[in-house]
């Protein structure tokens, strides 16, 4: 021991603090909604705009809700995985299109009427799905992002797993990768469907 070891002690304390700091703000903390009933909504369906869909319609089934938008670059990264998933797995995958027009930013919302926004949003979403493939059983349109706020959506993409009782069992923020799908989502789906 000598008089210089206190420096190491100080450094160790600093590292401990930083490590705790890292633990305080992880990105993938369970959402406060996990374990809670999925917030209800009633939104128009992309393919059939005069009809609406709500979580109640899938009561008794295990299903996935995937938040996406055509302007979202990360969505494009996860999309092939979703397309592949929908071909192989028989679990309803519902798309929640989040702020298709408003979120893009290339538009001056002050100069756009709600009707125009609606038309443009449906058109853009349809084109995008045609281009990249449509893995969704159906997609609902959340033009103003209110439902997104209910679900605590802060960024796109996000994915929720909802069980037979309509309770959110898992939330994944950010693009889905094969690891998350294979090791987290698939086992959970298998367990919930038992």
């Amino acid at each position, binding site marked *: 021991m000598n008089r210089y070891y206190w420096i190491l002690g100080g450094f160790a304390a600093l590292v401990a603090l930083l490590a705790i700091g890292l633990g305080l703000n992880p990105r993938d903390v369970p959402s406060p909604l996990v374990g809670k009933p999925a917030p209800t909504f009633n939104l128009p369906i992309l393919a059939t705009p005069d009809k609406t869909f709500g979580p109640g319609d899938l009561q008794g089934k295990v299903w996935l809700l995937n938040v996406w938008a055509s302007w979202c670059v990360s969505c494009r990264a996860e999309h092939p995985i979703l397309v592949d998933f929908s071909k192989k797995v028989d679990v309803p995958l519902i798309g929640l299109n989040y702020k298709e027009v408003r979120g893009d*930013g290339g538009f001056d919302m002050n100069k756009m009427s709600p009707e125009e926004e609606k038309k443009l949003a449906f058109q853009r979403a349809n084109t995008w799905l045609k281009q990249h493939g449509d893995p969704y059983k159906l997609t609902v349109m959340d033009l103003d992002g209110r439902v997104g706020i209910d679900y605590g959506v802060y960024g796109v993409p996000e994915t929720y797993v909802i069980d037979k009782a309509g309770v959110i069992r898992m939330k994944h923020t950010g693009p889905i990768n094969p690891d998350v799908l294979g090791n987290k989502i698939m086992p959970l789906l298998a367990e919930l469907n038992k």
Partner: protein
Amino acid sequence: MIPELGHFALILATLVALILGTLPLLGAHQNRMAWVALARPAATAMALLITFSFACLTQAFVVSDFSVVYVAQHSNSLLPLQYRVAAVWGGHEGSLLLWMLMLSWWAFAVAMLSRQLPEAMVARVLGTLGLVAFGFLLFILITSNPFERLLPAAADGKDLNPLLQDFGLIIHPPLLYMGYVGFSVAFAFAIAALLSGQLDAAWARWSRPWTMAAWVFLTLGIAMGSWWAYYELGWGGWWFWDPVENASFMPWLIGTALIHSLAVTEKRGSFKNWTVLLAISAFSLSLLGTFLVRSGVLTSVHAFATDPQRGIFILIFLVAVIGTSLALFAWRAPKVGLGGRFGLVSRESMLLTNNVLLVVAAATVLLGTLYPLLIDALGAGKISVGPPYFNAVFVPVMTPLLFMMGIGPFARWKEASIGEILRTLRWAFAAAMIVAIALPFIYGSWTPLTALGLLMAAWVTLASTLNFVQRVRHTRGGQSFLSAALRQPGSFVGMNVAHIGIAVFVVGVTMVSSFQEELDIKMAPGEHVDVAGYRFTFNSVKAVEGPNYFAAQGDFDLAVNGKFLRKMNPEKRNYHSSQMPMTEAAIDAGLLRDVYVSLGEAIDRDNPEGEWAVRVYYKPFVDWIWGGCLLMALGGLLAMLDRRYRVKARTSSPVKTPAGTQQA
């Protein structure tokens, strides 16, 4: 294909860094000259590979290759070419690669410019740099690969954050990183000295120019960032005590202490342990800054997209680098002998005080930056520590530092006489007092803080000038004053220039915080407003279109005393590809003041040609803040080029030019 080549070069560079970080160090330890000789070629190869890799990423940006995720997220087909190039370091992955590029260039520079050093020393320095590089390269490859593909490719990129689409982004990060990373050289020299046990004046002399170079870059980088924030953010401030700013300021404070302490170690052989500890700390704080910015533990305007995996990696790296070097220090330091003794009043004791004050300042910044984290970790809630804390702490710590800055250069090494110094400086102090008392009155109002700031600025300027003049007189012999002045050593001239730079900076800070005027007001076309004698007439707002944005452009006339000065055209931009609006202030810069106008928002959104909320500023002497920083950097440059650092190099190669003309 090219991104894959870049990725491959990066992997090769990692292997080379591993070789550089192991064999030369072992070779130096076991006296195997073949391994020692590997250091230079390995450093060169690493620099080449990383430069190639960086060029590949740049190419992907230039041709807008949106099949690369990083490009798709930070560029856009509409982005002008210069910003596409700057966008290479506009995000986390690319800026890390830039960091690495700088590190490899520093290592290369050491390899090239170290002919006068013993081979074992070079091997140890480059080996240490190689280990640091290896850690960073692993970090890039494992968590932050900039070459990752996006398939299918994006149709268009997400665009660079509009705040970053500016000249500032092109030069601020490279300068800052050169400074940050440059301290790795001082660090490597310190580690090499600890390893070899050769902690002496020669070691201090070798590391001085390198430390000075890093300090010059860091000074310029911070100043550039501050200037950028001032004109680009449109908030009118130049320093916000934001965690990321603090992260760059702490290494600067410690680096400043280090360049002073190195002087003592070189001249007198004292402070050896302290100097080594400072060299380790300066680089450690650079790493800590990286951690704070990229791990997301603190919130900040600058924060990169965060990822806990990255945070954990950097923390492990931090522990490995800093922990190992501190342990090495604790193990070796007690064996280092003390240097020459010195009296209570001496150049040494003054520089010691300088060091203590700078370290205290850095510690208070560190405390203020980490305090919210500490409180959060203790579960006592979320808090923020604002600028008032830093201002309240900084003024009392900096005042004695500035006062000492005037006296220190007059003190002799070993033992100085207070009486003699006081006699020399009494007129300078009296003159500074007069300035401090009179000038604020001329400017309108006298407050103690204004007077204190001006007193210190005048004091440092007068004392530094006197110091220079006195020395020239003593050494002139038969020459004219001018030619004797030009023949002073670079480090002496540099010191006084840098100190005057501090004084200029202090004038800027004092004047702008005492006498600035600011007004937020609603204006309709045709109306005018007067601020500090300047009349701003709001003529109109019209829609304009830029390469990748729409903007509302204001048309203002600036006049003083009824005389028209110029048009001012602030803009409110809306970028096509991201939804962020951006304020572009119009600034009329001048030696004694800036005036500044920026558009807030249209009062009625449906009528953008009608009334607007407008912000108008009058900022006296604000440009002196950055002017002072430039002088500091110039001083550092002069000191770095001092001819005595090249003496040995010249004895080994024949002198081609007379010594005098080589002076920069």
